[in-house]
């Protein structure tokens, strides 16, 4: 059996653009339509940004089910965020605002700008980015081979949290919000968890829940992932 493409040298036509665009095409591209938050019917009259005690931004691939189950309990969904199934939730009793963001780098700059009014009004902000473990870079990578999760902070000064080291970094809306708060010298705690299971299962969720609790985020103590159809691999 042949292996198409094996041994071929695939050179990207351009490194300049994240989205699919050739270098000679972008000049003729139409200006992008502005993205907007889509407010739910119940909160349609209440579109002004809410002032929260704590804004929690959680971002990663397939994060929606985990975050809505463990973090959005007793919260009211305010609006959908234009990046896949992303959404914004408000818990009036704890004054906690929650942004759940599915991984979508191509709209992350624009979505960051949409969420900045909320980040401006928040007394404190916690961002958490979930990434696959293979993206973690370290000169001692063998040391982490058995770890379920690698937890790192960016400028958090927390005793039990190790600081993220270059060349690692985070990218996306959480990075945008954290970067803005940091430049404005407003309180922000930014974390990244490199996990070996995405979407999270009940074991991989434990370090995430432990971290969220340690920084004062109201959440459940465990997570049960949605039931999947059997694989049909075996009788």
């Amino acid at each position, binding site marked *: 059996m042949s292996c198409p493409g094996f041994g071929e040298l695939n050179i990207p036509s351009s490194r300049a653009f994240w989205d699919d665009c050739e270098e000679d095409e972008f000049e003729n591209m139409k*200006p992008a339509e502005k993205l907007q938050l889509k407010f739910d019917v119940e909160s349609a009259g209440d579109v002004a940004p809410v002032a929260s005690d704590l804004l929690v931004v959680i971002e990663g691939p397939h994060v929606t089910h985990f975050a809505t189950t463990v973090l959005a309990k007793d919260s009211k969904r305010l609006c959908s965020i234009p990046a896949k199934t992303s959404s914004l939730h408000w818990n009036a009793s704890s004054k906690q605002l929650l942004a759940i963001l599915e991984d979508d780098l191509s709209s992350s700059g624009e979505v960051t*700008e949409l969420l900045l009014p909320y980040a401006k009004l928040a007394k404190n902000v916690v961002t958490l980015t979930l990434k696959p473990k293979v993206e973690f*870079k370290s000169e001692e990578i063998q040391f982490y081979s058995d770890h379920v999760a690698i937890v790192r902070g960016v400028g958090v000064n927390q005793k039990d949290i190790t600081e993220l080291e270059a*060349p690692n970094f985070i990218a996306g809306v959480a990075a945008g919000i954290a970067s*803005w708060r940091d430049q404005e010298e407003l309180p922000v705690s930014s974390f990244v968890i490199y996990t070996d299971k995405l979407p999270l299962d009940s074991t991989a969720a434990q370090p995430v829940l432990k971290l969220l609790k340690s920084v004062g985020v109201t959440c459940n103590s465990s997570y049960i992932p949605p039931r999947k159809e059997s694989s049909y691999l075996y009788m």
Partner: protein
Amino acid sequence: MLFLKEKRSTLDLTEYTVILPSICVGNAAQLACDLLIASKKLRRIGSLTHPALIPVYGPSAYQHEPNEKVSSCELYEGAEDKLLVVQFRAPWIARHTGSFQQELVELLKGARRVVILSGSFGFERRVIEESPWAYRASDNFKEIHAAQLGNAELIKWKEHTGEAIYGGGNALQLYKAFDEKNVAVMLLFRYLLEGDNSTDASLIVKELNELCEDFLQLRSGSGGDSSFKLTVPKSWNLLFGNDITELLF
């Protein structure tokens, strides 16, 4: 959105030279800017955000500014040398590039001169004996640097006249945008290939130094290239990812 540190409200670039990379083949121009910033220990003075830029946040990329956090577009200044280096850390979003480019030109158009660094695919160099360097300069830039650009012993670059620089990203469009605003602008690029482009980056900086030695001053003495002093930033660790696990074998 422009963020400036220390409560500065405007960016005064009078008499400044601005160096900015295009996001090109092998990221060579960005690597060259990294070398410039680390070698000259430039000070971060601000950053830019725009929907065209994928937000980035993380630990400092340079040893000399350990408390800074990286972001997608950073501004570094050498006040003594009147030098401003722009660094991009993420590719752009094509549908927003036009408006970002306009914003960038508006911000930097007050500079004395602008140098755009770039690269082009090595296989686009049709005559192998020709110089691996090419440039394109506006008339007012050529006037300022007539002595250097006219000295064939010093500058061996070929003048580019084509309509595209393949692999050069948005370099040519950015050059044209500055030229339209009558900013003295030069686009300098090297023909190179994807791979370990750290050598290409140092060669770009060395070549730029031939033109701009008055302010770059990267030579430690009067000797030849051997005395060239460049500092590799710590963010270049693991440029090609982690070591391969022993369990694989």
